[in-house]
């Protein structure tokens, strides 16, 4: 295979601080090349340079053997380089079909025709997405599917996938991998950026590892194993620490029943759903996307409302509750750590301290009443930065400047400031690097050890099996099976979720 795209000595600096340092990268024609590294390792920046989103400070690029420069993403796209971002770039108010054909509309186009062709195209990719649905109404996984479909539709020669599977269920991932194989067989080169090491090992032909903006290794996928990759990524082995299977003897015994969801119903998303959550335990919720896990959690947390007629009941501390707003749930002691941290988790232009203080204000726990107490805010920022080991370039760093893992820690800190009794984590380690995953897991464990009730929604089976004291499997809007770590295997859980 010949080189399709080459990067030579690429360096990118922000305000004099290098985030990518003298990196060489070669993408061969028709290969799947995985780009791995912790958050902040420079993977996204490197891929953005490739996609024309940011410009390198130094270095050269060759495309098809000719010098290339992509000042804008549009120019990159015209040259055959498409990028599927971790954060979707779709227009939320437009339909799926309109988003697919955005920028490619004819002068006179029939909406019905657009929908039909979009439907056919999505079906050909095995993506079950309604082309007439507005993007705003879709969940994170389906948005990701549309994003991927759009890149495939543009018939790009190089497609850069930035964390494409983070929001997908195992079944959807299977379809995605099949799609990658199809694209590869058509000669498309793929750059695959992911934190899921197993996925990289499974589908990549070659793997490049970055650490702290520097190139560490590039080799055929067969030359790597999980431990070798982790060592290269973080400089130490974490494999055994992260996802070991817990035995029944390590399960925490349940405390008081804190939450009882009874026959909860919300449209077709949640149907007659019932389960309990106990203090001092981590209750893991697993299911495919659309199985109603997040919706149920959001109803409990007062973010969305259950059906007005025969919507069932939520009992918190043996009291029937119906929260109109999240604020009422927070004041009762229920906090929800969102799966979509960028949209719902924090104010990205505000500092760590500002964001944490906002959490305090949500429950009127601040000392200044209507006035902001700057000293309190600074003290808060200092103490939680230490507690959660949030790593930032400087004290007043804005949330947007933090890496994914540190942003997640910030969201968790903001939630915990509200002195909750029940913490709901929705995909707590999605898009988080392997080092931060361990820290977040430790933190979740500590909460349960301290007697809090914890709900953890995750699509990553090893995480569910490793962390949960009870595992509830969702299918079609309700809990269909319950496992303890002693009797849970990934196969059994998946079987319950699918059949």
């Amino acid at each position: 295979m010949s080189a399709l795209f080459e990067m030579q000595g690429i360096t990118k600096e922000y305000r004099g601080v290098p985030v990518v340092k003298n990196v060489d990268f070669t993408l061969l024609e028709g290969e799947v090349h995985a780009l791995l590294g912790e958050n902040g390792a420079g993977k996204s920046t490197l891929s953005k340079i490739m996609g024309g989103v940011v410009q390198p400070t130094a270095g050269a690029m060759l495309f098809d053997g000719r010098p290339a420069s992509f000042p804008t993403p549009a120019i990159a796209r015209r040259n055959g380089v498409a990028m599927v971002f971790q954060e979707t770039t779709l227009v939320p108010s437009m339909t799926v079909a309109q988003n697919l054909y955005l920028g490619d509309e004819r002068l006179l186009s029939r909406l019905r025709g657009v929908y039909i062709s979009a439907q056919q195209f999505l079906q050909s990719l095995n993506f079950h997405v309604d082309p007439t649905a507005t993007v705003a109404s879709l969940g994170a996984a389906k948005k990701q599917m549309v994003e991927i479909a759009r890149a495939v539709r543009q018939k790009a020669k190089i497609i850069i996938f930035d964390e494409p599977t983070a929001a997908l269920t195992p079944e959807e991932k299977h379809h995605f991998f099949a799609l990658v194989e199809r694209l590869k067989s058509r000669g498309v080169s793929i750059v695959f950026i992911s934190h899921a090491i197993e996925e990289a090992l499974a589908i990549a032909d070659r793997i490049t590892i970055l650490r702290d903006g520097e190139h560490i290794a590039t080799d055929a996928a067969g030359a790597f194993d999980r431990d070798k990759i982790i060592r290269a990524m973080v400089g130490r082995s974490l494999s055994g620490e992260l996802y070991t299977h817990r035995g029944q003897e390590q399960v925490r015994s349940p405390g008081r029943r804190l939450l009882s969801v009874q026959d909860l119903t919300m449209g077709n998303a949640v149907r007659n759903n019932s389960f309990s959550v106990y203090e001092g335990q981590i209750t893991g919720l697993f299911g495919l996307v659309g199985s109603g896990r997040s919706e149920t959690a959001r109803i409990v947390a007062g973010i969305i409302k259950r059906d007005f007629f025969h919507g069932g009941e939520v009992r918190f501390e043996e009291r029937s509750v119906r929260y109109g707003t999240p604020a009422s749930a927070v004041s009762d002691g229920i906090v929800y750590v969102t799966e979509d941290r960028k949209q719902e988790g924090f104010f990205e232009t505000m500092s760590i301290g500002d964001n944490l203080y906002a959490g305090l204000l949500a429950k009127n726990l601040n000392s200044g009443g209507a006035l902001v107490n700057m000293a309190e805010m600074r003290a808060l920022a200092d103490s939680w930065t230490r507690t959660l080991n949030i790593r930032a370039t400087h004290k007043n760093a804005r949330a947007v400047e933090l890496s994914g893992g540190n942003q997640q820690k910030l969201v968790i800190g903001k939630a915990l400031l509200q002195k909750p009794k029940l913490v709901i984590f929705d995909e707590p380690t999605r898009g988080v690097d392997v080092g931060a995953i361990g820290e977040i897991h430790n933190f979740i464990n500590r909460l349960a050890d301290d007697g809090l009730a914890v709900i953890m929604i995750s699509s990553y089976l090893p995480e569910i099996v490793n962390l949960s004291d009870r595992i509830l499997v969702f299918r079609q809007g309700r809990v269909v099976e319950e496992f303890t770590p002693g009797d849970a295997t990934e196969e059994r859980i998946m079987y319950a979720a699918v059949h």
Partner: protein
Amino acid sequence: MMGVLRRTFDRFRGAEEDVITLPPMDGAIRPNQAIEAAALVLEIERPDNLAFDGRRVLFSSGAEVLAFDPSQETAKPATVASFGSEVTCLAADGAGNLAVGLNDGAILFAAGPRKGRDIADRGVERSCPTALLLAGEALVVCHGSRRNAPDAWKRDLMERNASGSVWRIDLATGKPACLSDGLAFPYGAALDRSNNLVVAESWRHRLIGLPPDGAARQPALLDQLPGYPARLAPAARGGYWLCVFAPRSRLVEFVLRERDFCEDMFLEVEPDYWIAPALNSGRSFLEPLQGGAIKQLGILKPWAPTRSYGLLIELDENLQPIASFHSRADGKRHGVTSCLDLDGRVLVSCKGGDAIVLLDPRSKRGGANR
């Protein structure tokens, strides 16, 4: 006025107080088939009221009290006493006392120094003895209802009565004291570490605490049970065993709110075929079916809605469930009304399944589909 309107509207939309929901069987009450798989000790008609007098295991079957030696490999029951009415409750202690409650309302001593003495003649309510507890020099009596006899428990539930009471009788003086009144079918009692009474209030699906002097009733100690609780028994390793004799179901909860329907049902349908909980089910085609899809390819699914169920819950010392043992919809050992802990092995009477079984809680348990 607004309150009335809101109540009416809530009833229409099935919300707030009119919501018909049930607590799930999950966590410590996760379904399994442990009772169904337990060793059979005895097959006998309608066994109930397991007790231990220090030597023998006592139990009732119809109008008889029987006993067997638990150390024998095969239980050979012998009749201890016979009565003119069905035995509804009994209590025994190591001193040879055996108190018995009968369906006709009588409560008498069938053995021991007080043999033949009728407690109910001494001013104690005489209607529905459901549970007895010998506590030192006192006898605690649970009366399920003022309106119905014990064998009419189904009617009492469907009438939504709350006329039960708990009495404490000083055995030395014979003086009775009402500890609590207005209870919804108290059906079991035990003493906690502080000598307070823990009472199972069946129709309200909860356990409540009663101080020994009958002072103010405590709030529910355990609420929102998924079935109707019956007898409580102390567990050898601390805590309690709680028998749940029938499951709650949304259909029954719904029918309970439909008073006109209930009245018609009382008049026109035999109690065995009411839409109501039962000690056993599936024995007659006249019984009401619940929901659809209870059978697939001729096989009754364990998660099918059912009127009867077998459930024994192990509670810790704080009365929180820590484990449970089930006989599900497709099982036969339903209607668990009493149990007895014999140094870690638990005898369970399945009144609906006509069997006494022996559970070994340590050999438990395996999950099941919900």
